[in-house]
Every structure is written in structure tokens, then in C-alpha cells.
């Protein structure tokens, strides 16, 4: 069906979000909004010896913003702070398997922005 724009994996992450939980005693907790559409993502994380040991997210908004947060948290647990900071737009596009225009790209990049702000906050 042509209406099935989104890949199955993306929809699966939307329906059954991974790491959609609060983190006990988090080392960082960041809550940000994309005002253009009201997408909101909260990410909490624990870091031990520079390695992301746990991540949890919550939020509201479109399929792309929420499913990307699920995929991203799954991808980043076990990675170093530098690995997370090195992630770029093209990594996210590859992760969700979708070519996005500039407007939808903002939805897809929100969770990366939130996570990177969390990691940056650690270093201060």
C-alpha cells in the first residue's frame, strides 16, 4: 500500500518503544521540544567510565520523532560519550532508512540533539 511510507522497523519501534522507561539516579536528564510541531523528547542516562550504561526516553509527537528516540537509545547503550558525540545526521538517516526533507529531518534529529546535550552536560 502506498500509504505505508514508513519502514516496518520504524513502525515497530513506534508501537513497541525500546528503553521507554525512567533511569534510576540518572547522570543526565534532558527534556527538549521542537516548537514547530510540538514533538517532545526526554532522555535520561547513566554513564560509567565514559561508557553509556543505560538510557531511557519518553516523549510525545510524530512517529519519526518517537521511533527515532527508541532506535537511538538502543544503538547508543554500550557506546562511549565520544561515539555519541560523533553521531551525525547521516547516521540517523541510515538508522531509520528514510530519505527526509528538511522539515521532517527536524523530527528525526530531535532525539540525537537531546542525547548529545545530555552527554555535553556530563562534561561540565
Amino acid at each position: 500500500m502506498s500509504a505505508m511510507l514508513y519502514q516496518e522497523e520504524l513502525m515497530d519501534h513506534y508501537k513497541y518503544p525500546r528503553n521507554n522507561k525512567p533511569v534510576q539516579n540518572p547522570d543526565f536528564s534532558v527534556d527538549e521540544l521542537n516548537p514547530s510541531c510540538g514533538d517532545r523528547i526526554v532522555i535520561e542516562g547513566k554513564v560509567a567510565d565514559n561508557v553509556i550504561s543505560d538510557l531511557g526516553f519518553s516523549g510525545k509527537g510524530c512517529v519519526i520523532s518517537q521511533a527515532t528516540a527508541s532506535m537511538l537509545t538502543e544503538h547508543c547503550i554500550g557506546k562511549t560519550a565520544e561515539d555519541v558525540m560523533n553521531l551525525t545526521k547521516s547516521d540517523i538517516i541510515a538508522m531509520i532508512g528514510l530519505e527526509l526533507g528538511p522539515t521532517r529531518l527536524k523530527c528525526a534529529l530531535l532525539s540525537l540533539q537531546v542525547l548529545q546535550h545530555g552527554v555535553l552536560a556530563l562534561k561540565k
Partner: protein
Amino acid sequence: MDVIKIRKDFPLLSEKSDNQQPLIYLDTSSTAQKPAVVIDTLARFYTSINANVHRGLYELGEGATTQYEAVREKVAHFINAQHADEIIFTKGTTEGINFIAACWAEQHLKAGDEIVLTQAEHHANLLPWQRVAQKTGAKLVFIQLDKETFTFKNPEQFITSKTKLLAVTYSSNVLGDVWDHNRQQLENLVARAHAVGARVLIDAAQAVMHRKLDIQHLNPDFLVFSGHKMMGPTGVGVLYIKKMLHDAVQPYQTGGSMVHFVSFEKATWAPSPQKFEAGTPPIAAVLGLGAAIDYINQKINFEQLQKHEARLCSVLIDGLEKIEGVRIVGNKLWARHHGHLISFMFDGAHPHDIASILGVQRIAVRAGHHCAQPLVHMLGIDSLLRVSFGVYNTIEEVEIFIKALAQAVTVLRTTCNMQAFPQSLEL
């Protein structure tokens, strides 16, 4: 008015994509499609007329000036302004409003004065006044919108002896009509503002393509609109300034072609409109706007257009109401009788996702806060879908849209097992 015949005048609407799915363009409130005559006018200017205006004494330059000034006359006639020199060409609606904010309001308003707006303004008719308020100490007052009927009840109560400016939209880009159909309510409000000595600015960006504007009847001091929303090119708009205010309004920019006498130390201004049009104007775009006005005058009867668009709105509302969980934002009764746009949303399906899925099927609708965040948030919404019509839209297009929309909503409305934290975050 033969819509099928009219459609053929618009190249983008007859062009087919690779998979032969025709474009269904339902976003005219963002920008209208352009008839071939407008597009051709742009090319013709650069191929056979190109010269600057108000400068060259050679034939080409004189010709460009004559044609440029002829469009000013055309615009004046189109909106029934008394004098052509009341028509100033700008970049668009936003520039027109910023122009009056910076070059009239900042000089004439002071602490304690009030600027009266409505709660239904586009950011373009809100942010410039926020800045004026910050700079002058004037206060913004908002005519309250009734959230049930999406109308204004007794708007005149907001006009007081402190009111120095009334700046309101003629038609909302989110809600469509917000004033009663014959504009009696708006006319009364304008008269009331004038009675207390206030000036009046009307944002006609959303009205110019759907309503016959009549300056002498409506009697604003300033009125703004964009060329691209009335099938003209982007980059050109109109600012109407009532003649008696030409001295009170300062030039927005200074520089070439707007001067009378210049010494190394100072300068005096040429009269309007030159005073308000420093530098080389968007000549090709202005001629394109002239072509759009000619096209409208020749092909469009505003009464018939209104009936056509209202019929499209009716079919759309009927279709939307068959989809479970729809919420229509705006006065439905007015839309059925004289509307040209409908905003709506669904439970459990985000507007961005819906618009993306429709986009893949070459159906163009707007999704988001429509540059009216305070209004949309006041209604308890983050994001909305909007379908807006033009002269070229058909009932068949609305039917195809409804079918695709219902399908998209079903696909998206799957159970999402999200839990919310912190507690303040509601899902």
C-alpha cells in the same frame, strides 16, 4: 467559471510525475499556484524589457518604468484605492507590517498607548507589534476569540481611548473567516477605532485571493498583502498607505531613487511612492503581479469563486466527519457558506505523519502550527493539518484526498505502548 478550463492555465497542475500521479495541491493559503501568463511575464521581462526603472532615459528604461507604474495603477484599481501613489511595492505582507511598525508606530506610540490585535493573528502580525511594545512601552491588547464558535464577540469593547492602533487580520490562515461574512463586524470595528483617533492596519494576506478588497469601503489606514498568495510571483507584496499619512510614515530604507535633494550631510525625500521604495525594486515580480491581476480580472468572478470554494469546504467537512476522532478547528457553518480553508486534527495520528504519507501520494497539505503558535496553543493543540483551496481545485480532488487521508489515519493509529515520564508529560 469553468474550473476544468482554468486548471489548464496552471502548468504545475497539468504536469505529471513519473508515476503519472497528478499533483493535488491543497495548500493555496501558503502560496497559490501560478498561471502560465504570470510565469511568461517574468521571462518576457528579462528577454525583451530588462532595464532599471526611474533612471534610464533610453527607450528600454522608459518602457520598464511605464510598465512598472502601470501595475501600481492596476493594484490601486484592484483594491479600489483612490490614488495610485497610495500603493507601495514591498517584498510581501511581512515586510509591509514591519514597515509600518518601524516607520510609523515606533515614532507615534508611547508608554500607556494600546495596540489592539486579535488572538487569531499570524506571527507576521504579532511579532512586529511585540517589538514596538518593547521599544515604546505601549501595551498589546487582544480581542478574544470564542473557542466554541471561533468568532469574536463584541470586539469593539477592546477599543478604548488608549487605543492608538488596531492591527487585525482580514481572514485567518488557521481558522478561515473570523469576521462575519459581509464584514460588517470588521467595518464597525474600524469605524470605532477611527472614532477614538486610532489608526488601522488590515492584514489581507489570506483574503486577497478570495475576497474583493475595497479600500474605500473598508477604510483602513494601512493594508498589506503578498503577491504570491494571489497567483503572482514571490518577492513582491503591496503596502497601502492612506494619502493623508504619507508624511507621517518614515522611509523604511534610504538610498537610491527615493530622494529629492541630497548633499554630503543630508537629504530630502521624494514624494510617495518613491519615498517608500529605495533601491531597485523587484521589477519583474511587479510585472508578474500585474499579470496575475489581469488574470483574475479576466477569469475570476469573486462571487462564483466564493461559492466554488465553499462547496469544496462542504464536501471536505462531510468527508472529514466520517473519519472517527476528527476535530475541526474553525467555524464550520461559515466555512460551508463562504470558506476557503479547513484546519483539523485526529486523535492518535500526528499531523506531520499524515502530511508526509499524503505527500508521497503527491497530495500537498500543510501541517504544523501555521505560524500562529499562540492561537494554536490556546486551543490546546500542538499541530494541525490544513487544507486550503484555490480557484483550480475540484471536488474530485477533495474526494481523492479524503480517501487517502482515511487510509493514512488508519495506518498511523496503531497502539503505541508508550509510558510517560516525568509525570508532567502527558501522552
